[in-house]
């Protein structure tokens, strides 16, 4: 598989604070990657380093298997960091024209990309008249101008209202479905879960996990159960080796599975044991629970 970005033993120190500690991971073409971590875990710093705006302390990174300099590589990358930064006195079109000049892209791309993010009818409005959602969409259009090999987004939905968040997310999914590699940094877990196929989890600058999202959620899931025969059900579950553990919260019993089992099999089993259930839901642990577990253990 083609490698887009390789990071090896990257470290960044701000005085006494180590923002990124010995970080290594690789980005392959065609996947959607998430960098997940609480605020201050080194996500933005890592992206800043590979985008040439933050100087690394030690370690290394290389774009496109080291065949080009970072400066040239960035022309094949589309990136937005934190807030959309544009010239407030220029219109959307003029701002994108400037980016075209930097990247060496033809001006004809401008209308095409404005169309994708739905800003074509506002192309002659000044940037400082835009709402935050529009600014963010303009930033995405700007990042797409050079038809990048990889799109890097840092907290793209930060500060947006629910509609804005939805718009940006569907935009990202649409771009991903067209085969563009995406690297998305976020502290919003469900964002990463909904959009990404791979994830790197960071905490205080250290890598806790890196791999596929579905492999991270490795458990077999759990049942949420309610029954009038509460005690009978509870003692059955506690003595069944198929279940790892059982949790009771009032009437609700949560039984964690030890091995795969679907809801109908379980239901049949209950019938055989003469236990009638008034509530049966099978769920998988969300990334959030997994993430909290991961960050707590360390």
């Amino acid at each position, binding site marked *: 598989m083609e490698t887009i970005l390789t990071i090896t033993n990257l470290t960044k120190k*701000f005085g006494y604070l180590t923002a990124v500690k010995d970080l290594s991971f690789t980005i392959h073409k065609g996947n959607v990657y998430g960098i997940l971590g609480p605020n201050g875990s080194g996500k933005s710093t890592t992206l*800043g380093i590979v*985008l*040439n*705006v*933050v*100087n690394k302390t030690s370690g290394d990174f290389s774009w496109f298997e080291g065949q080009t300099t970072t*400066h*040239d590589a*960035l*022309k094949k*990358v589309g*990136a*937005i*960091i934190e*807030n959309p*930064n*544009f*010239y*407030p*006195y*220029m219109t959307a079109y*003029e701002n994108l*024209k*400037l*980016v075209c*000049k*930097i*990247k*060496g892209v033809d001006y004809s791309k401008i209308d095409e990309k404005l169309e994708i993010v739905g800003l074509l009818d506002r192309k002659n409005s000044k940037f400082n008249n835009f709402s935050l959602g529009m600014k963010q969409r303009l930033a995405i259009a*700007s990042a797409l101008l050079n038809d990048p090999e990889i799109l890097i987004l840092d907290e793209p939905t930060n500060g947006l209202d629910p509609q804005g968040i939805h718009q940006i997310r569907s935009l990202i999914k649409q771009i991903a479905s067209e085969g563009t590699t995406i690297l998305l940094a976020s502290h919003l877990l469900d964002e990463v879960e909904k959009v990404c196929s791979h994830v790197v989890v960071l905490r205080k600058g250290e890598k806790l996990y890196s791999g596929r999202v579905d492999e991270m959620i490795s458990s077999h899931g759990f049942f949420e159960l309610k029954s009038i025969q509460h005690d009978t059900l509870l003692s059955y579950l506690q003595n069944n080796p198929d279940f790892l553990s059982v949790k009771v919260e009032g009437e609700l019993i949560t039984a964690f599975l030890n091995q795969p089992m679907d809801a109908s099999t379980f239901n049949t089993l209950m019938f055989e044991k003469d236990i009638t259930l008034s509530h049966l839901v099978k769920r998988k642990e969300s990334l959030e629970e997994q993430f909290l577990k991961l960050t707590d253990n360390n």
Partner: protein
Amino acid sequence: MLRLVNLELQKLLLNRTSKILIFISFILPFTVLILSSIKINFFGFFTLELGELGIFNFPIIWHITTFFASYFKLFFAIVVVSMIGNEYSNKTIKQNLIDGLSKKEFILSKFYTIVLFSLFATVLIGVASFLIGLYYSSYTEASIIFRETEFLLAYFVKLVGFFSLCLFFGMLVKRSAFALAFLFLLYIFEWIVFGVATKTFNLETAWKIKNFLPLESMYNLINQPFQRVVMTKYPENIDIAYDYGVYWYELLIVLGWTAIFIFLSYRLLKQRDL
């Protein structure tokens, strides 16, 4: 190179404030020059015609126009510091770099623009002086006309040097207003150095030291022309004779400072985490 200049010109010319300031810095010295060259009649009481004083004669006109025009450089100095200040306050410097502009290119695009502007201002003053001179000057032989055109070169180097200093201050403090304040501080600092040098050595050595400092070395390129005007009126008065020429070492000092300021701006940007 053209790409970098083009980039910076778009940033400047679409901004109304800097557009006005650039316009003023080109037009104002030009207008003042033209106005001073025409005959002004004060309601029939008397007529004021500066041309009569002989200041528009070749070759002294090169000296006079470049000296006065250089005062208008402050307008473009504001543009220079704000073109750095704005990049920081809008955080567009970060976005520019992410979009694929290297830190070197960023500084160079500013520097090329400075050079282009200085060149344009020099040509403008050159042409205006030439035309006014042709009209007023009593001497019109080519050898006299083109004598002392080195003042134009000095003017150009002076502008480039001064704007590079502004660029450096802009990069250093990131805020336009503070950068301009730093210019004033530097001016005071140079006089303090002069004062200390006078105390420790003597007046002559102190001047020699001050001539190497940035602002004084730029001022030195084009000495004040008043004494010279008086000299031409009373050539027999030798007491007021002074050396007003443009010397290669004066140019070299300013070019040296220019190189230092541009290099330091680059170093500063390279080491900074944005």
